[in-house]
Structure formats: structure tokens, C-alpha cells
């Protein structure tokens, strides 16, 4: 039985084409994925991300627990509302999920995880919490909306003027609690904006106010091309339990600085680093005509690789991909990608491909 978010009826009313996404009936687009993509790059769009799960953590061991649970180090969060992106790893270094953790105090945090992994994440987190004084509360009573684009904040304030005083000072990756909402200056598009959590009962009203302020709905299709251009990984595609973060373009999220800190997966990652020849997740831009997709073979002078995500990139008007490539392949190199019966030329680049409305390559 597929699940629906509190905004399901609003999607139908907006003409959404609904698809199954990780067991949820979600809008893939509301007419044109391309227009929704451009709307977010050029103005403001909003996404229903209520299928993702917020999990509240509270207890005197919360910080110590998270320092062991996550590959990034929550000890660097000292300002209330500050957010951090991290992977949660298995002992062998495989990625269970990627997530955002929000800090409120050393005894109180919130984690937001992916929809498709939510059940196993909660089970894993509960198991790791067995001997710690920390309580986990999954918050299926919340709805989440991402408002993204160069005019997203301005239109958000038009809809909710009273929130401006607390949300305008927020820096990137900072959040604030406001009444029963959480307003965070985060996103998955490479554009400015907010991600807000509100009680599910308020979701339809909030969505309507944003529509009235000129924020257009955008579906999961546009969300995927926006995040790909922005150089952001998608769990289950660019990394999963069989891949480690070091070979998934996520080394920057693994914090080895505090040598006294042990986190789950650390010893496996250290061993992997010592072996050397780490594969790298890099970007590809197709030179020949065609469209890159996930799971295409990449031929390089140093061996074969594989694309993990690929699409037509609306902002660049050409095709791009992420690919896991052999050690030694460099940005600027030309490689070949097997598409159907042809080998097409592509250039290796370092993502992101686009940010803040502009192509970067």
C-alpha cells in the first residue's frame, strides 16, 4: 500500500503526474519537468519532501552517540540551529544513508533521512542507541517543504512575513525553530532557499500560501536534474551500502581530525585509504550528441568506470553525469561512454556543474 504525504491532494489539484517513489505516491512533474527546473534556477519553486523522515534525538548522551554514529563530526556544531551533512556507515564503510543533522544543544538534535531508507535507518539507529542515554522520536507528524531559487526567500517572506525577523539572519546550513516550525537555509538544488518542517495538519495551508506568493510547485523530476547539476549525490544511485564515502565524492564529509574519536566504519575507511588506488566520483560532460544515463560503461586509459547518475542538464543544455572512475583520471581528461552500440566522447570535470543559476563548466 503506497503512502501519501499530507500534500497529496494539493499535488492532484496542481495537475501532478504521480509516480511511486520509494513506496510513496509523489509528483514527478506538474506538466513540464524542464519548466520546473528553470523556474527553480531563475525564480522560486517548491518541493514536497514530506516523504523524508525527521527523527528527533534527546538525551544526555546525544552528542557522544552521534559522534560514533556518523562519519562527520557533530562536535563542530556549536551554534544552535547549525546543520551538518553526513553519511551513516556500516562497520565495513558502506553507506547506510546520507542525512542532515541539526544541532539545538549537546543533548538535543534532529536528523533528516531519506524516504527509501527511513525504516532501516531507524532500526540501525535504535540498535546503536542500546547502551546510550538517548531517545529517538521519528516525526511522521511533520510535513516538509523545500522552497528553492534565487527569489525563494523573498517569496517565502511574502507568504509568512512574521517569520522574516528570525529567518533572514540565517546563514547557509543554519536553521531556527519558529513556533512549531523548523526553518532551515538548506536545500538540494544548488540554489538559495529554505527547507521547512511544519505540523502535517498545517501543510495544505502553508502550501497554499506559498502558491499565492508565486512559488510554483516542482516535482521529483526537476529535483533530480537540479541536484545533479549542483553536484549533489543521490542515495541508492551514487552511493549505497556497497560503496564507501571516500570513493563516492564524499571524502569531505568524513572527519578524521579528532584522532580520539571512533566512528562506525572508521577502521574500514582507514584500511581502504592505506590500500590506495581509491576510485573517484567525478563529473562527465558529453561532447558528442546523446544523453548520459546511470550504469553506462566509461572507458578510460586507466581502466573502466561506470556512470552512477546521468541526465540531460537543462541549465547547460547538454548531457552530464557522475561516474565512478579509476584512480588517476583527472578533470580535463577525455573518456568514452558506451551508449547503446556506440562509444561517445565525454570530458571529465569536477562537479558542481551549476550553482546559483549559472553554469560552472
Amino acid at each position, binding site marked *: 500500500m503506497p503512502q501519501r504525504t499530507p500534500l497529496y491532494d494539493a499535488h492532484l489539484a496542481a495537475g501532478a503526474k504521480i509516480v511511486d517513489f520509494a513506496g510513496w505516491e509523489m509528483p*514527478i*512533474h506538474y506538466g*513540464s*519537468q*524542464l519548466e520546473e*527546473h528553470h523556474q527553480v534556477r531563475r525564480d522560486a519553486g517548491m518541493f514536497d519532501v514530506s516523504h523524508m523522515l525527521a527523527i528527533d534525538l534527546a538525551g544526555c548522551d546525544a552528542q557522544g552517540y552521534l559522534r560514533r554514529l556518523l562519519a562527520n563530526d557533530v562536535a563542530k556544531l556549536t551554534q544552535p540551529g547549525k546543520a551538518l551533512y553526513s553519511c551513516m556507515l556500516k562497520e565495513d564503510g558502506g553507506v547506510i544513508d546520507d542525512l542532515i543533522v541539526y544541532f539545538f544543544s549537546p543533548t538535543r538534535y534532529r536528523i533528516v533521512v531519506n524516504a527509501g531508507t527511513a525504516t532501516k535507518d531507524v532500526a540501525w539507529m535504535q540498535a546503536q542507541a542500546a547502551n546510550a542515554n538517548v531517545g529517538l522520536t521519528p516525526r511522521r507528524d511533520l510535513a516538509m517543504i523545500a522552497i528553492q531559487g534565487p527569489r525563494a526567500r523573498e517569496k517565502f517572506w511574502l507568504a509568512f512575513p512574521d517569520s522574516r525577523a528570525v529567518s533572514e539572519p540565517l546563514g547557509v546550513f543554519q536553521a531556527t525553530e519558529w513556533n512549531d516550525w523548523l526553518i532551515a537555509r538548506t536545500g538540494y538544488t544548488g540554489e538559495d532557499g529554505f527547507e521547512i518542517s511544519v505540523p502535517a495538519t498545517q501543510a495544505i495551508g502553508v502550501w497554499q500560501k506559498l502558491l499565492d506568493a508565486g512559488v510554483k510547485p516542482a516535482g521529483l*523530476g526537476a529535483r*533530480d*536534474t537540479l541536484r545533479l547539476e549542483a553536484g549533489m549525490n543521490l542515495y541508492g544511485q551514487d552511493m549505497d551500502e556497497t560503496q564507501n564515502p571516500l570513493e563516492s565524492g564524499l571524502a569531505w564529509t568524513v572527519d578524521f581530525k579528532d584522532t580520539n574519536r571512533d566512528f562506525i566504519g572508521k577502521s574500514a575507511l582507514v584500511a581502504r585509504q592505506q590500500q590506495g588506488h581509491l576510485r573517484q566520483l567525478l563529473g562527465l560532460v558529453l561532447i558528442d*550528441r*546523446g*544523453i548520459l*544515463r546511470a550504469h553506462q560503461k566509461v572507458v578510460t586509459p586507466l581502466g573502466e568506470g561506470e556512470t552512477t547518475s546521468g*541526465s*540531460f542538464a*537543462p541549465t547547460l543544455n547538454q*548531457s552530464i553525469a557522475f561516474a565512478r572512475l579509476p584512480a588517476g583520471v583527472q578533470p580535463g581528461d577525455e573518456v568514452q561512454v558506451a551508449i*547503446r552500440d556506440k562509444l561517445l566522447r565525454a570530458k571529465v570535470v569536477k562537479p558542481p556543474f551549476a550553482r546559483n543559476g549559472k553554469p560552472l563548466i
Partner: protein
Amino acid sequence: MSIPADLKYTKTHEWIKPEADGTVSVGITDHAQQALGDIVFLELPEPGRSVKAGEECAVVESVKAASDIYAPVAGEVVAKNEEASAAPERVNQDCYATWLFKLKPANPADLDGLLDAAAYAKVEAES
């Protein structure tokens, strides 16, 4: 969704228009273009290529997926639509005016085996 009465169809959502010179134009139906979404790339067969009925002979790629196009009957490719290749969004804008390639059927009687508009409407309703 629109299904012009004067065209022939396949179960795989191609339309076929017999031309005065004995060739047929082939495109994709309104149902197909809507299901695919924004079309951004066409890979069309080279003139001169011989195809069997049901053979994959073109690819239509939208932002989200690639979809194979099948030859409706056996024959020889005599033209591909370069204008559509240069502006694939035309398939979304007017799918029945935007042919993808033209075939010279090996056996013109094969066209009788294609679906008419009423039969295709049933296929569409079930898909």
C-alpha cells in the same frame, strides 16, 4: 488524448502515415509523448538502412528516460527528420506533425496489419 482518424498505429505507440509516393512517415503518438515528458534528444535511423517489422530503429530520449521506437513494418529507411533532431521539443509540441523517419515498406500489404484509430484507442486505454 488525441488520436487522428486518418493515421495507422502500433501497439508500441508509433503512428504511421501513408504518403502519396508510397512511403510511410512514422512518429510517436500523443500518449507516448505525454508519457515520456520533455523530449530532449532523438537518435534517428540513417537512410538506406533496412529494417524488419518490430526492429528497434530509433530512440527518443526525454529528460527522464530513453525509449525505443520500433519499425512498424519491414522496409528501407528513406529519410530522417533532421529538423526534429535539431529541435526535439517539437515532438512534444505537435507529435502528429513531427515525423521521425520515413520508410519504404517492403510489402505495402503489411500496412493493412496495423491498427486503426479505434483499435489504437483501446490499446491506449489499457496502457
